């Protein structure tokens, strides 16, 4: 088992690095006690769950088993956690209400998409990636980031963005979801058990930016200071 897994990791460095780099922001969150902030606590949960899911998927992939079910199930869960992060950052009640509605609506939508994309849900071997949900998740997260950036510019409460943890978190997410938004719907057609299609470099870009995203999370968490957040 270990040999198969390590062989798979060595043969797929881009994907494997994207999985294990998540350990860095998790460790930094614990060291810098970033979980004291509500938003960063949710980010911590997101990172831990992501690491577990990614590792399980890596194991399944190395064992030549279909792991796309985990990918599909992670979509609403990740959006709920990332959306929750923004819930604590937005000041307006209307924005918060819209955010809660979008989380609930997206959970329903992604469930429908899983059912819609798979004729037979019980056939886990032939399970396929959702067609729309990942792209919609990307659009929603990018919209939340842009709305938050607008609020930052409007309120002028943060004197130096480069030392503000959540700015780095938003930048990482913006890059990751931007790299994924066009690739995500194509994955539905490319990742099939019987006739998979190689996407070449386009396939690696989201993984590269997943790594970049984790690094930017780390920079943000590194700048976190419990003293500043106590105000």
């Amino acid at each position, binding site marked *: 088992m270990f040999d198969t897994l390590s062989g798979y990791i060595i043969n797929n460095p881009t994907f494997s690095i994207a999985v294990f780099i998540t350990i860095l922001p998790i460790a930094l969150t614990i060291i810098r006690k970033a979980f004291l902030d509500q938003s960063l606590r949710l980010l911590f949960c997101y990172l831990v769950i992501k690491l577990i899911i990614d590792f399980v998927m890596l194991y399944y992939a190395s064992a030549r088993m279909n792991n796309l079910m985990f990918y599909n199930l992670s979509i609403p869960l990740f959006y709920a956690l990332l959306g929750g992060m923004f819930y604590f950052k937005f000041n307006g009640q209307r924005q918060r209400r819209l955010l809660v509605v979008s989380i609930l609506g997206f959970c329903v939508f992604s469930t429908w998409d899983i059912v819609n994309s798979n004729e037979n849900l019980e056939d886990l071997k032939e399970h396929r990636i959702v067609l729309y949900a990942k792209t919609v998740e990307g659009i929603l997260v990018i919209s939340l980031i*842009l709305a938050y*950036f607008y609020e*930052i*510019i409007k309120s*002028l409460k*943060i*004197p130096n*963005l*480069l030392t503000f943890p959540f*700015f780095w978190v938003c*930048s990482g997410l*913006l*890059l990751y979801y*931007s*790299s994924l*938004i*066009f*690739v995500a719907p*194509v994955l539905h057609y490319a990742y099939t058990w019987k006739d998979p*299609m190689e*996407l*070449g*470099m*386009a396939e690696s*870009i*989201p993984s590269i*930016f997943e790594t970049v995203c984790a690094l930017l999370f780390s920079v943000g968490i590194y700048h976190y200071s419990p003293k500043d957040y106590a105000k």
Partner: protein
Amino acid sequence: MQNSEELKWALLIASLAMLAMAFCMISFVMYYQKRRFEEEKRINDIEKNYNRLLLDTALNSEETERRRIAQDLHDDIGTMLSLTKLSLNQLSKLVGNSGDEKEESIMKKSQSLVEETILHVRRITRDLVPTTLERFGLMEAIEEFIHKLEEDSNLVISFQSNTEEFPRQGQKLELTLYRIMQELVNNAIKHASCTKIDIALEIDEEMIGLRVTDNGVGFDPEKIKESNLAGLGLLGIESRLAIVNGTVQYEQPAKGGSSAIARIPVNPASGNKPEPLHPFRRERVNI
């Protein structure tokens, strides 16, 4: 096969374009935020300078008005009182010759009232314009102020300085320190119910420190500032200090009472000696 290749390229280009947009967005937010902060800071600086100028002008006007009143008191009322005193002296001689005791007693009472009024006018004139400050400097002015206060009350006021020869400072700075000292001592007398006041004046290479400590009831400066009227004196001190880049700090010593420390950067007097502040000359005060 060809379609698959085209799809790969299209995906790659679209993803890269999206990433470029994301990079631009992040850079724009950073740049725009920085620019807005700079603009905001510039506006704040302009507003601050304007307020400072306004305050400076108001304090200048106040000093000019004090001088004008002192001058009018001295030139008009003072002169008339001196003439009245002279006339009363002449009249006193005439009354003395007549030998009427009742008339003599009324005359003496009138003379003493006029003399008392002359003294009051002199005191008010000196209070309005601190001529000792201009002529001899801060230490002498504070000593004179203490001497006058001790004459009129049972207070014990001590004054000490870390130097025997306190170097002369700019006119504005000396006047600011003097007025602050006056305000702090008056506050202690009016509100602290104290029996002892210590005034300390310290100077080093960079800063001048003025400390006024009393053994009264003490106070919480934040609470006083919050109440509109009661905090006017403290606000006045802060306003005066803002003009000379000074700071003030209030403390509550463990043994009771209160202590205020004003610190102002040293600003030695320029080579040419300033014109003495004197009520006899009609001129504008250049503080």
